[in-house]
């Protein structure tokens, strides 16, 4: 069933102002599609996915920036230390606010605690967007599994619109890279990726693979090409023999 509906989806490159389709459709990406009268138009440069069977459409942007959404996992860098909270740079139009009560998990006394002792400017934090609406700056929480201060790994910055491609369908791309390079990836929705690896060489390969995905995000058949790329890099570095190379 899913195979047949997959074939109904066509992908085309669209630019702002392009008329996409006429009729009643379900818009899956409300910021990149708008409607005038009975027609739908694109508002960005992106790839149109039109599903005529399910009557739905979406435009995946090719350029863009991060705009926070509640529930997003983000990787922030501390930009300011306050009396009871930190300010994080989260690559969004707004600073992220991380309350000390949330981070430390206990009441904070500004007279006794100096927040600089826990997180200083430049420290990297993995968090989740807890609250955000049009009138307030996003509040970040570090309560949860694998959230909190980062002490090791390599931080890679990519364009935020390429993140879905880096994760892949149901995490396929991410798990492929993790298996092939024996690294652990933490992918922040705001366009930062933390790579934790066994050694420097695998780290190098993983970072190069991420860069490759960023450049070729709009080309189909990417997962296979990235897999091939990783294998090639491994052979180059002598991590596996030429004979072990499976295609």
């Amino acid at each position: 069933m899913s195979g047949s509906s997959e074939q109904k989806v066509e992908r085309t490159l669209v630019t702002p102002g392009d008329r996409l389709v006429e009729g009643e459709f379900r818009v899956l990406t409300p910021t990149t599609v708008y409607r005038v009268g009975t027609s739908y138009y694109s508002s960005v440069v992106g790839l149109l996915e039109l599903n005529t069977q399910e009557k739905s459409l979406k435009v995946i942007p090719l350029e863009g920036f991060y705009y926070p959404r509640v529930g997003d996992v983000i990787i922030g860098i501390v930009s300011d230390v306050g009396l009871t909270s930190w300010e994080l740079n989260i690559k969004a139009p707004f600073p992220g606010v991380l309350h000390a009560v949330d981070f430390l998990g206990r009441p904070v006394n500004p007279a006794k605690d100096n927040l600089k002792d826990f997180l200083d400017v430049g420290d990297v934090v993995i968090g989740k967007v807890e609250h955000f609406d049009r009138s307030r700056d996003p509040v970040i929480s570090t309560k949860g599994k694998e959230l909190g201060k980062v002490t090791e790994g390599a931080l890679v910055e990519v364009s935020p619109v390429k993140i879905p491609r880096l994760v892949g369908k149901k995490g396929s791309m991410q798990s492929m890279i993790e298996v092939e390079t024996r690294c652990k990836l933490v992918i922040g929705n705001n366009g930062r990726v933390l790579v934790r690896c066994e050694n420097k060489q695998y780290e190098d390969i993983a970072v190069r693979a991420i860069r490759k995905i960023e450049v070729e995000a709009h080309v189909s058949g990417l997962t296979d090409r990235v897999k091939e790329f990783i294998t090639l890099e491994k052979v180059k570095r002598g991590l596996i023999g030429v004979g072990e190379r499976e295609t």
Partner: protein
Amino acid sequence: MLESERPKLIGENGLRHDGRRIDELRPVKMEVGILTNASGSAYVEFGKTRVIAAVYGPREPPQKYMVLPHRAVLRCRYHMAPFSTDERKNPAPSRREIELSKVAREALEPVILSELFPRTSIDIFIEVISADGGTRTAALNAASLALADAGIPMRDLVAAVAVGKVEGHLILDVDQVEDNYGEADMPVAVAPSLNAVTLLQLNGVLSSSEFSEAFKLALKGIGEIYRLQKETLRNKYLVKVE
């Protein structure tokens, strides 16, 4: 005496002083993504008029008082480089540049979906690096390309061109000489898919029938520019596929 210095703008053969037909654009060149540090950027060339536009944002405005609670603020700076003209131009913003910054902002504001990003600012910097007439229209073409390149949601691209009247003929894409010695100059900016005019200025005198004729001529040129703009945006990705 001045009369003798006046160049012949339309020749016997009906061609203009640079060899163009009266309804022909100058050679146009467009490119996007030329600056790495900007969110979006574009370079546009109309003959000897060359313009660079850079877009930053949406980002936090530099001063908190600027923020609007219901939409993004659009900030626009049109500037001519000191070396862009024959005689050195003082780099300080002139009265004309301040006005053009405002005019350019108002021509772009209606197409940007700024209500999606309250409390932010979108900054557009337009730098004219070589001026030969029609800089405001080239600036608008570049700015709208740069906005699209930055991934800022917009209802449509803005395409602009100037029409004018010289020696009794209506001409498309006015250059510096034609602007200096012509009878009228009318820059027009349009969002073609929306069928909406976002900028319309007229310097000089046109009769009402001439005006509608000139406007039609502008729309013809804009159609061509709009097509080029979209092609430029698409080409950025078609090249990368290989």
